[in-house]
C-alpha cells in the first residue's frame, strides 16, 4: 500500500471541501477500496472518511418509506430495517461476512456500483431515491453501467430513500470464491406494479427485467414467469458462469424470490 493522508470530517460541507483536493478519494467502509490499495492498484493521496458524519448515518422508517443514511453499515441496516423492510434487511445481512457488514456501507456500495454487488438491485427494485449533497436522483437514472453512476465529481451520496413495498424478496446465487452475487434478483411488489432488478449478471451492471415485471404485475406468482426467458446476449460471462447460465439463474431466482416474498 502506498502512503496516504487520512481525514475524517464531521460534516458534509467539510467532506466536500476535502474531496476537492487533488488525489482525494471518499472512503465509506473501504471494503473494495482498501483491498485495491493493498494490491497497489489504487493510490489516493488523501482518504476522506465519510463515516464520521452524523447526517449520513441511521435507519428511519416513516410514511411508507425507509431512509438509510449512506454511511450506515450493512449490519445496522440488517438489524434496524428488519421490521420495516425485511427483504432489504436480509439483503444487507447477507453481504460478505461480519467484518464486511460492520464496515461496508450502502453509500459505498452504490457509489462503487460493482456489477456483482447486492445493494444496487435493492435500490433499483425499490425505485429508491438517491439523495446527494446536490440533488435527488431516481434509481432508474442513477445506475449507468459497470462501476458507473450518475454521481458527478465531488458529489456525495447522503442517504437513500426506499419506498416500502407490499411484498419483496432478494435471492442471490453466490459466486463460489468471492461469494458476491453470481446472480442476484430483487423482486418488489408495489400497488403501482412489480419491479424486478437483477445484479451480478448484466453486461452493463444492474438492470430491470421488464418482461417479468409486466407478467408479475398481472399475476404475482412464480408460475407467471414460467413462459419467459432472458436473452443471454446482454449478460456477463466469466470463469464462474456463462451468459446462458446466468440467464437461467435469473429466471430460477425470480421464481424463488416471488415464492419467498
Amino acid at each position, binding site marked *: *500500500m*502506498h*502512503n496516504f493522508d487520512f481525514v475524517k470530517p464531521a460534516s458534509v460541507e467539510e467532506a466536500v471541501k476535502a474531496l476537492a483536493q487533488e488525489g482525494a478519494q471518499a472512503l465509506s467502509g473501504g471494503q473494495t477500496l482498501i483491498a485495491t490499495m493493498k*494490491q*497497489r492498484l489504487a493510490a489516493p493521496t488523501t482518504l476522506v472518511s465519510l463515516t464520521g458524519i452524523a447526517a449520513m448515518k441511521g435507519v428511519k422508517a416513516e410514511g411508507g418509506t425507509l431512509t438509510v443514511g449512506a454511511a450506515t453499515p450493512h449490519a445496522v441496516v440488517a438489524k434496524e430495517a428488519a421490521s420495516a423492510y425485511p427483504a432489504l434487511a436480509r439483503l444487507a445481512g447477507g453481504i460478505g461476512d461480519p467484518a464486511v457488514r460492520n464496515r461496508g456501507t450502502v453509500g459505498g456500495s452504490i457509489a462503487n456500483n460493482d456489477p456483482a454487488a447486492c445493494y444496487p438491485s435493492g435500490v433499483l427494485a425499490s425505485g429508491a431515491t438517491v439523495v446527494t449533497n446536490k440533488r435527488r436522483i431516481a434509481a432508474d437514472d442513477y445506475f449507468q453501467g459497470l462501476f458507473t453512476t450518475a454521481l458527478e465529481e465531488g458529489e456525495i451520496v447522503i442517504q437513500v430513500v426506499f419506498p416500502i413495498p407490499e411484498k419483496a424478496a432478494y435471492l442471490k*446465487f453466490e459466486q*463460489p*470464491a*468471492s461469494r458476491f452475487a*453470481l446472480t442476484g434478483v430483487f423482486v418488489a411488489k408495489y400497488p403501482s406494479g412489480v419491479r424486478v432488478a437483477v445484479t451480478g449478471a448484466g453486461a452493463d451492471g444492474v438492470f430491470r427485467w421488464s418482461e417479468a415485471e409486466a407478467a408479475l404485475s398481472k399475476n404475482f406468482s412464480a408460475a407467471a414467469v414460467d413462459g419467459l426467458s432472458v436473452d443471454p446476449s446482454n449478460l456477463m460471462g466469466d*470463469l*464462474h*458462469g*456463462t451468459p446462458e*447460465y446466468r440467464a*437461467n*439463474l435469473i429466471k*430460477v431466482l425470480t421464481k424463488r424470490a416471488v415464492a419467498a416474498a
Partner: protein
Amino acid sequence: MPKDTGIGAPMKRREDIRFLTGKGRYTADINLRGQAYAAFARSDMAHGRINKIDTTAAAAMPGVLCIMTGEDFVAMGGNPAGWLINSRDGTPMREPKRPVLAHGKVRHVGDAYAVVVAETEEQARDAAEAIEADITELPAIVDMAAAIADPSNRVHDEIPDNLCFDWGWIEDNRAAVDAAFAKAPHITTLELVNNRLVPNAMEPRASLADFNPGTEDYTLYTTSQNPHLHRLLIAAFVMGIPENKLTVIAPDVGGGFGSKIYHYGEEAAVLAAAKHLKRPVKWVATRSEAFLSDAHGRDHVTKIQLALDKDGTFLALRTETLANVGAYLSNFSTATPTFLHGTLMAGPYKTPLVYVNVKTVFTNTAPVDAYRGAGRPEATFSIERVIDKAADELGLDKIAIRRKNFIDPGAFPYTTPVGLVYDTGNYHATLDKMIELGDIAGFDKRAAASKAKGKLRGIGYSTWIEACGIAPSHLVGVLGSRVGLYDAATVRVNATGNISVLTGAHSHGQGHETVFAQVVADKLGIPESSVEIVHGDTSKIPFGMGSYGSRSLAVCGTAMVKAVDKIIAKGRKIAAHMLEAAEGDITFEDGKFQVAGTDKAKTFGEIAFSAYVPHNYPLETLEPGLEESAFYDPGNFTFPAGAYACEVEVDPETGRVEICSFTAADDFGHVMNPLIVQGQVHGGVGQGIGQALLENTTYDEGGQLLSGSFMDYAMPRADDVPFYIVDHSCNTPCTHNPLGVKGCGEAGAIGSPPAVVNAVVDALRRAGHKNVTHIDMPVSPKRVWQAMQG
C-alpha cells in the same frame, strides 16, 4: 505407561497452544538487527524475450540499497530437478537450466527477473515497480497439446517440441496390454482433466537471509518442509558454498502441502543480496505472489481405458497422460507424474496388465510439482472414474464391481504389474466398514426424501490405495532419483532424565511435536511431557529428508524408535553394572530396568543421571552420556488404503452441489494418535472436496492467471464440507516398520475427489440424464447445469 498419553492416546496437540494464542514464531516474525527488505520485479507477460532491464531510475529511488537482475546470477548453478526420467526411447529428459532470476527470457506471469533491496518494504516495492523492463512479448504456450504440436513456439529455445520426456511404464508390458485390449469383450474409455491447483498454504513463502562477514557463515530462515534438502540444493547446486557455511532454519511453518519442499530462486537471491550488502535481507511473499510463483499441483489431461469381461472382471488398463510441468522443472516435478503416479495405476485391484504413458510438457505457466498426494490423486481419480463409467456401461453395481476385482486379503505380499509390492492390506474390510458406517443400505430412502424436496441425490464411491514413505534409496536410485529417501533422528537423554529428540522430519502443521513425543515416551516409559521434539534447524538436527509424502512417522518415526532402542540397550548395560547383574538378566519395562525375577531395579532417570555423572559406571567398557542417533532407509513403501462414500444433493435448476455426507473408512496400520489422524483425514478430504467442487486454476490463452486471488479462486470453507464420518479401525499393520504405521497425511486428498465426482454423475444419471458420463473438476454449478442441458 499411562494410557492417556502413550501410543494410541487421542492427545490434543501441544503445539496448538502456541499457534492458537499467537505465540508461534514464523519466518515473518523473525527480525534481525539492520535488516533490509527485498521485493521482486515479476513478469506481467507469460512469455517474452528480455532485451534490457534498466534499473537506473529504480536505483536512484529513496532507500534503495541494491538491485540485482538475472544477469547477476548467470554464473550460479541452476535449481536442479531431483529425479531423472528417461523417455521410452531411452533418451534422458530435457533439463533446461532454472536460473535464480529469469535471464534471456521470461517464461510465465510472475517469473521474477530482478530483486530490489531497500531500507523498507514499501521502498523496495516502489523501486521494483520503477524498473524499466524492455521485453518483447512472444506468443504464450498454455495448452499442452498445442505446445507439443507446434515446434516453432518454444518455452525453452533448445527444446523444439516443449516435451520434457515421453515415459512408458512399464514399456516392456505395452505389447501385452495392447493385445489384451485387442481381444477384450468390453472397453471403457474416459477422457478427463485433473485440474491444476494452487497450494495456498496459510502462510505464504518467506525468507530472511543473514551473512556474517567475520566468519563467512550464511543463515537462511525460510518456509521449508525439509531444511536439509534446501541447504543441499542451495549450497551444492545453486550457490556453490560449502554446506557447513550455510545454516537453514525452518521455524514454525504454516502449511506446505508440498509447495515448501522446493527451493525457489527468491531464497538464493536474498542470500546473495545479504552477502553483497553485509546486512540481513528479508522477503515475505504477498498472497498475489504466492498465486503466481508457488509450485502448483496436478494439471493432467488423461485418456484412460479399461478392458473388462462382461461380468466386470478387469482384464487390462492403459492410460495416456499429458502432464504440465509449467515453465521450469521444479525439484520433484518429474517424479510426480511418473513414479508417484504410474506405479499406482493398479489401485487395490488385481488388474493383470497395466500400461501407463506420460508425456510431460513445458508451458508458459507457473511450475507444477507435488501437491498433497502428488501423482497418487491423479492415478486414483482416473481409475475410480473409469470404473464407475464401466459399471454404468455394463449395468453392474458400483460396489460389487470393485469388490470383485479387489486383491484378496490372503494374496499379500502382492506384486502389481506396475512395479510395486504391496506388503499387506484388506480392502474388503474397509469397504465393509464404509458400507456399515455410511448406511449405504439406507440410500434409497434418503434419495426419496431428497426428491420430495426437489433435489437429485447421488452416491459415489472410491476405493483407493497409495504408497507412502517413498523408498528404498537403492531402488529409487535405479529409477532415477538423485536423492536418498531415508530419515534420521537423534534421541538426546538429558542428565535429569528428560529428552530432546532431534528429527529430520519437519512439522508444518502435522503435529509431530505431540505424536513423536507420545511414541518416545511410551517406548521409554516416561511421561510424554518429558519429551521435547526439535526440528527445522540444520545446525541442530541430523541430516534428514523432511516431511512430505506421508512419510514422517513411517520413516523418521522408525529412525526415532531405532535410536530409542539403542538408548535402551545402553541403559541395560549401565543398569547391569549398577545392579551387579548380567546384562542378559536386565529387563526394561514401564521405565524401569530390573533384574529379572527380583525387585532390584533402577528407574530410567537414575540410569540417565548415572550416564552423565558416571561415578559408578563401567567407563572402561562404555562411553558416558546417553545420546543415540539412527538413520533409517525403509525396505519398501507403506500402502495405506481405504473406502470412501460421498452423498450429494444436486439442485436441478441451478446445478449447485451440496455434499450431504462423507464416509471415510481407512486402513492406516497402527494409529499412534487417533485425534491427529482424524484431523489429517478431515483436512485431506476437505482439500479433495475443494479440488472436486471449487478450485479452478485458470490461465487464459495469453497465459494470464484468471484465478489469481481468493476473489476468483474458490477455496473450500467450513460450510462447503459436511460433518465427516471417519474410521480407522481396520488395521493391517505395515509389515516392515517397527511401529506398524503407514501414514495418513495425504489419504483424504487422494481418495475423496473421485467419490465426489462419482456421486454427482450418479445423481444426474439417476435423474434420467443418461448422456452424462463425466464432468470435469471442479464440478461447479455452471458445469453441472450445462451437463443437464444435454
